[in-house]
Each structure stands twice: as C-alpha cells, then as structure tokens.
C-alpha cells in the first residue's frame, strides 16, 4: 500500500484514507476513484490491500440478458423519430442522441447503474489540487472509421465547438459556467488539458457518454454535415440514413479496439412518432428491441415472458415547484404542508409499477454517491399538514392552480397530487398545457413554466447533481421556477461544486438536503427508472439512462 501511496496525488491519498477510516464505502471509493482518474486495476489493488473484493461487478440490468449473444445477424430497433438533423452540436432529443451513439464515442463512460466512470477514448485523467484543471491522456491507436488517427487536435476541435458560449451548442447546458472555447488545449498529440472557468470535482462526468453531444469528431469536419457520413470512432459505420424514416449501420471492420468489435453484422433502426406503434411492432415481430418504453404504455410487455425488460435506474425526475414569492406559497409552512400531503410510494406504484426511487425534495437522488441517505425521508402526514396550514392561518385550506405539461405521466401525477392535497383541504385546479405552451419563450415573464404559482416540469438524467443544484435552485438560476432565493443555499452549492473529495461533498449534501427539506421550494417526489424492451432471444442490448441504445455487444441467443 505504501508503494501505491507514494505514486498517487494528495487527493487520491485522501480518498484512500477515507476508505481505510471507514468514512466511505468500497462502492463509493470505486466511484470516486474513477472520477479522480484512478484505473480499475489500481482501484482493485487498493481495495484488495484494504481487505476485500472490489465489488464493482454487479449484475447489470441495464442490458438485456438471458443467454450468450452470438456474433452476426441484423438487429432491428424501434426508436422515437429524431426531431432534427443528426448534428453532434445541436442534438437534444432522444432519437437524435441514440443515433449519435452508434458511430460516435466519448472520452469517458459512466456505468448506468453504479455511476462508476471508465475511460472510453481517454486512457486516464488527473486534476490539479483545486480541480480547476484536468489533464486527459488519450488511448493510443484510436482511429476514425476512414482510418485517420484520432489525436488531441480532434478533442480540442470538438470541445471548443461544444463549449463555445457564443455558439449554438446543446452541450452548453452542461458546459455553461464550467468550460468555454479556448479552455481545451493540446499538450501533445495524445494529451489534452481542460482549464475550467471554476473548480469542478466532477468534470470527468461532463465529458462522459451522459453528455451525449460530446462524441469526438474529426478536426475541421462540419457538424452540420455529420448526418451524411456519421464519421466517428465507434464500432459501427453508417450504411444508410433516411431523414424521418430510419437508419442502418454495419460493423466497422477496422474498429480500433478489435477486442471489443461489434457482434452484430448490421443494425436497422426504424423511427416511430409514438410509443404505441413501437410496442405493437415488437409484439408483431417487426422489430427486435425498443429504445424506450413507459410503464403506462408498455404494461403489456412488462408481464409478458416473451420479452426482456431492460430496467436502468436513472436520476430523471419531475419537479413540482411552488413559487416562494407568490401566495399561498410565500410561507414555507404551506409548502411543507403540500409536500406532506403527497403519498410518494402510492404514486410510484400507480404511475411506475414500483420502477422508481423515492425522492426527498432535493435533487440528491439515492444513486448519487454524494447523497447523504441519513437525512429522514419525508412521508405522507395529513394531520401534520393540516396543523401547518392552521399555523399559517389557512386552517380551511386554500385553492391553487397547478400548471402541467401534457407529456409523459405528468397529467396523471397532477391528478394524484390533486387527490392527495384534497385530504388536507387544499383544492388543486389542474391546468394542462402542451409542452410548447408550458415552456413558452423559456424566459421569466413569458413562460408558464417559470411564471406559474405551481407547476410540474420534467428533468432528464444527470450523472452528477451539479446542473440540478444550480439552474432550478440558485438565486440566479435560469430555470428557477420556484423563485427560490436563499443566500445560505447559494453558498453551500458553491462549496459543493468546488469540493474535491467525497466526504466533503457528503457533508455539504447533508446541509443542502436538510435546508431544502425545511424550505421545500420544489417537491422532488421520485426518480424513475429508464425502461427498454427486447425480444427474449436478444441479449447484450445496453440502454443508458439518457436514452442511448448500445448494440456492440448485442446478439441473438437462438
């Protein structure tokens, strides 16, 4: 162990100390160690030296199982139609990101279940002491599908384009305030340095597969023309792409990582405008797999033994905001009362057939290693809710309008909240709006999302809670629909972003979770699982919580 320690940085040694002292679990050590850039063999050695197996391998339900996938064949997949051109710079929808992932690769990959990071195009990474600079060493021998070697120049080109604050990149929702154009530099052909705008201990996650736009493209290539070639470094290459109809890919015979070459000969994607036709296509044998199903739409598949349901825990959720600056929610007791009315386990059972995790009114999902799970879970308590309302001078309840987006299970969630709140004398009037109307112009004063007294908004999966702690809750947050302004919270979040070790992050998380439970600007009721479905005879299909369908290791078992 001493030999290992001598070669490791101060932060890595601190992490090792934390595990030896029992302040973090082996699982957390592995997750955090991968973020710090420690290799899996090194982590295994340290865990073994500390007495125990590393426990990092878990039965992954993020991929379809049941038998060994055989090489060859064509796999037919149904996905939702991409809403725009397949441009790595602008793709922001599920169909589009599923397409990017077929031929593109990222610097790192976060395991969908454990959130453990591993290198994809990056071999290793390290940071400076205050985590404001990260240096990534690239894998050797990586080539694009046309045989051109991938170098640091391609990474700089890609990252500059994605992080350009004056550009139109979708990745700015991740890189905004973290990385700007010019912050990525090539140290040598196989080394890239990221100089951040502010310290960020979770930066390696921001260049992972979860930031789906961040596939590495060739220096000088026009992302707007990506759809014509799908030129990337991945295990498949484009055969044909037809706008709004579908796409087919074939195995890349010159894939740089020959040990992990794709099993299927060919992939055939068909685009569907809705979920139900996809399910019918699977049932009728037109396709072999579906990229995403919902519990409500896919109930017929959930209990049918002919299909495998791929169940991936995710941090995707809905936020129910209550405007802190507008009656009746100016009094935090009223907000607490509302949150106490809600029967969370009942909602999870009714809307997700149990396939979701409880939320505790903060963005800290149970999956995040930094979440402090010792903070008591809020549960339904109608008598306490009534008492709080009485204390706030609303013993007879009140009436409020709940704006909802007419999408996913949100209208049903609104009905559940309405029914639960009635028990405490609160009348919830539901106003359903199309997503276009609900989001409006996305600016304060021009958006029911940001202006309504109470509303429900959908939020996608994030491997780290940084974005969720920032935009919807910071006083200056651009998505702060609750109009929550709390200097104490702002200060804690700043500390969290700059924290370099897990124990510090956990300590801050506990304070944030406790503060948000007390203030309750937003109800976080659940974090739902991401579901996909395949035929029973198909194995190895991996689905990620952001919606990528990875098929390199997929194949038919019979």
């Amino acid at each position, binding site marked *: 162990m001493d030999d290992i320690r001598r070669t490791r940085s101060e932060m890595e040694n601190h992490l090792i100390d934390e595990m030896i002292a029992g302040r973090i679990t082996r699982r957390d050590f592995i997750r955090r160690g991968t973020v710090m850039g420690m290799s899996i063999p090194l982590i295994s050695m340290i865990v073994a030296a500390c007495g125990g197996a590393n426990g990092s391998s878990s039965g992954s339900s993020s991929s379809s199982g049941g038998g060994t996938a055989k090489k060859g064949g064509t796999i037919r997949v149904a996905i939702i139609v991409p*809403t725009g051109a397949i441009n790595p710079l602008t793709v922001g929808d599920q169909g589009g990101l599923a397409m990017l992932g077929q031929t593109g690769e990222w610097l790192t990959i976060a395991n969908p279940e454990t959130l453990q990071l591993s290198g994809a195009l990056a071999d290793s990474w390290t940071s400076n002491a205050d985590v404001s600079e990260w240096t990534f060493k690239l894998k050797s021998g990586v080539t694009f599908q046309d045989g051109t070697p991938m170098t640091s120049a391609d990474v700089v080109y890609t990252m500059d384009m994605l992080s350009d604050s004056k550009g139109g990149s979708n990745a700015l929702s991740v890189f905004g305030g973290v990385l700007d154009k010019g912050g990525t530099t090539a140290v040598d052909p196989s080394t890239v340095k990221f100089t951040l705008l502010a310290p960020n201990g979770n930066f390696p996650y921001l260049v992972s597969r979860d930031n789906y736009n961040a596939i590495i493209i060739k220096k000088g290539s026009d992302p707007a023309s990506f759809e014509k070639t799908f030129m990337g470094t991945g295990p498949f290459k484009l055969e044909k792409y037809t706008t709004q109809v579908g796409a087919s890919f074939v195995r890349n015979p010159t894939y740089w990582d020959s040990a992990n070459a794709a099993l299927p000969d060919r992939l055939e994607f068909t685009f569907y405008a809705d979920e139900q036709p996809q399910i*019918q296509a699977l049932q009728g044998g037109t396709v072999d797999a579906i990229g995403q199903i919902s519990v409500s739409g896919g109930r017929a598949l959930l209990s049918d033994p002919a299909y495998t349901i791929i169940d991936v825990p995710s941090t995707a959720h809905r936020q129910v905001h209550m405007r802190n600056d507008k009656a009746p929610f100016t009094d935090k007791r009223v907000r607490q009362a509302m949150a106490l009315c809600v029967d969370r386990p009942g909602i999870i059972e009714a809307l997700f057939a149990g396939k979701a995790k409880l939320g505790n009114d903060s963005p800290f999902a149970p999956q995040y290693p930094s979440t402090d799970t010792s903070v008591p879970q809020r549960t339904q308590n109608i008598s306490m809710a009534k008492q709080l309302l009485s204390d706030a001078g609303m013993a007879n309840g009140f009436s409020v309008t709940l704006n909802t987006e007419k999408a996913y299970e949100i209208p049903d969630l609104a009905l559940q909240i309405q029914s639960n709140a009635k028990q405490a004398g609160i009348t919830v009037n539901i106003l359903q709006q199309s997503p276009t109307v609900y989001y*409006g112009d996305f600016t304060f004063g021009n958006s029911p999302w940001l202006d309504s007294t109470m509303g429900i908004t959908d939020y996608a999966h994030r491997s780290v809670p940084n974005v969720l702690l920032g935009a919807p809750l910071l006083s200056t947050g651009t998505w702060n629909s609750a109009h929550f302004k709390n200097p104490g919270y702002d200060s804690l979040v700043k500390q969290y972003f700059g924290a370099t070790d897990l124990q510090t992050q956990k300590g801050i998380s506990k304070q944030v979770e406790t503060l948000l439970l007390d203030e309750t600007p937003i109800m976080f009721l659940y974090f739902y699982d991401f579901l996909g479905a395949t035929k029973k005879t198909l194995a190895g299909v991996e689905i990620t919580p952001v919606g990528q369908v990875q098929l390199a290791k997929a194949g038919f078992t019979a």
Partner: protein
Amino acid sequence: MARFILRRLGLAVITLWLISVLVFCSIQLLPGNVGRSILGPLASPQAVAALNHKLGTDKPALTQYREWVTGVVKGDFGTSQKLQVPVRPQLTAALRHSFELALIAFLVVVPLSLIGGTIAALRVGTAVDRGITTAGLSLSAVPEFVTGVVLIAVLGIWLNVLPISAAWEPGAGPWTQFTHLLMPAIALSCVLFGYIARMARAGMVEALDSDYVRTAILKGLPHRTVIRRHAMRNALLPTITVIATQLGYLIGGLVVVEILFNYQGIGRLIYNAAQAHDVPMLEGGAIVVGGVYLLATLIADVLYSLLNPRIRHQAAE
C-alpha cells in the same frame, strides 16, 4: 368547360397564396422557435439565439416570407430549418406515400359504400337497411386510431396475417406494398364507409321516389336498367362531391393513422413541421395539401357537370 376550368385554376392560385399568408401569420403567433425545438427545453437562451441566427430564423418575418415566396416562384421550396434537408424531395416522397394510401383506401371504401348504400336504399325500412345504416354509423363514430389498434391487435399480432407497419422495406414489390397499406386503408375505410354509404343511400332513396324512375318502371324497362341507368346516375351526384372532398382529408389529414402505422405521409410531415416552427416545410406542406383539396373539388365539379347535363349547359352559358 375550358373557360370554367381556367377560371377555377386562377382562383386556386389566389387561394393558395392566401393559405401561405395565413399559415405564415399563424406560425408567428405560436410560442417557441426553431432553435428551441432543436436544442430542447433545457438549452441556454444564448445557445438558442445563436442557433436561430445561424439558421436565419431570427430574420424579420416579412423578410423570411419574401425569401420563401421568391424561392417558390422559382420552383425552390427551400430547406427545412429543422431537418436541414431540401423541402421538395421530402414533400414529394410524403405526397406519393399519401396518394398511395388514399388510393388503396378509395379502392376499398368507394365500391363498398356505394354497394352498401344502394342495397340499403333498395331495401329501405327493412332489417338489411337498418343493419347497413347502423353498422356504418357505428364505424364512423369510432375514431380511426381505435379501429387501427383493434386491427393491429387482431390482424397483425393475433392472426399475424398483415404487416403491422405501413412502411415497407426498400425495393419491395407492388403486392408487398399493397399488403402493408391494407390495414391502414381498412381503418380509414371504416371511418368513411358510414358517411359515403349514407349519402349514397339518401340519393338513391330520393331517386327511386322520383317521377322519372316511376316513368321508367311504367315504361316496362327491366329493374336493373332502371337502377343502373336512371336511378344510380342521378343518385350518385351528391355522393361524388362527398367522395371528392374526402380526398383532401385522405391526403393531408391522416396524422393519427400515419403515426399509428408508422407511415411517412404528408399529414405527419405537416404536423411535425408545425410543432417545430419549420416555416419552409410547413408552408410547402400546406400549399401541397391545399392544392390537393382544390384539385379534388375541381375534379368533383367537372365530374358533376359531366354527369348532370343541366350543370354542363349552365357552365357553357
């Protein structure tokens, strides 16, 4: 007749221009923009503004409209702002698909409805009449997506005799294409059957009650000849108009059926364009569907006048 057709074509051009103005004004009133629809709700306002600038969607509305009209006059429908592909090939392919589906649906529903309506009229007041009328009304009352789901469940999944998707593999032959289109065509036929059959029945009942039919019968003409040459020819006049107006619906109004059977028709294309604020695609789609409606109405009028000498003579005068 030629003057009549030319005048109608001239009016059609004006109507299409008005449609383009209306569509353009309407889209300006809708919330959201192209950049936002591409980047999604969580993209930063700066990124959305930069993308809109790049796509040219932040130009003044009049400039955008002028550019679009100038292009259309030259035969260029422009480039889809959202999909970044030329509009014309997309429109052409979608229109072809919609025509194919409409054709199959017509081949199924028109003969069935006419036969059903005629039989009902000939057996007016009997159980057969009530059966056909009730069945038609019931089928019309059921939305096409319900009929479609039932058909998929029974014919596609349970019996597995017809393909579930209306889209066929590239290079498929005419028979395969026909089998793929049959299920959505049946779903549409169910909706249209009641309407067309009811019109055919009403026209036939009226014709059978007319003096000229009574005279024909008293003249001793065979029953079949009376029905075919005297009653049916007159009874079909209003039905033809109904059928022609349904052509526009079958070409441009099948969003639900197209989504259910995953078919790349023009209804779905227009719907997606409207959602994305994709002005060139939406304008192109609206003009094409508007053109189809106008053409169908013109064909109906011409057919009407050919079948009805009184109208023909009025047009000539």
